[in-house]
């Protein structure tokens, strides 16, 4: 499996996780919804060194 394929799988898993989180947040209301979205936003802003090297450290995306 090439690095490109690994990256695409990584991206797809992240995408699926985000969609799941958005669906979960849309079912909540008020501060709980804000908390879920806020956490998702901060996770998105984290650095990902592993992806550049082609390693899939994606426990959080499973």
């Amino acid at each position, binding site marked *: 499996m090439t690095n490109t394929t690994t990256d*695409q799988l990584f*991206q797809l898993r*992240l*995408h699926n996780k985000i969609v799941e989180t*958005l669906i979960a947040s849309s079912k909540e209301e008020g501060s709980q919804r804000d908390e879920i979205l806020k956490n998702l*936003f901060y996770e998105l*802003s984290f*650095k*990902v060194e592993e992806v550049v090297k082609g390693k899939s450290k994606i426990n959080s995306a499973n």
Partner: protein
Amino acid sequence: MRSALSDKLRKEDNALEIPQRYYLILSSYYEQQPDKIEDLLDGAGAQLWNNIHFQVILSSLVHRWVCAFISFDRRVSSDVNSSQLFLPLNDTPDTLKRLNVFIKGANKLFWLDLESSTKRFYAIYLVGPTCIIWLLLTRSL
């Protein structure tokens, strides 16, 4: 739908040594596979559109797509006469709504970076609104 502008942005990211972050990886993904954005919007539902956190999330994820979309539009419009300029944006209400959310999110990210003296979201607020302004100047939306 990769464009010369997108390639240029990527080179600039590398030149500026912007660290790889989750949102940058995903924004490249949505640029290459714009159909997946619909999954995001479907998952969000109408109730999230006014949420400040959703706005910044969406803005960070689709900023590359916005630029690719606009440069694609420019490439098409340069080949056709003026009466056909609106062809790529025939879904105008949805497009405007999305661009509006994108601009709001980019604005919030700019202030977030400014207040914390960081450049975490530099790629979004530097490039995204510039593309939107370019779109507004070259089209009569």
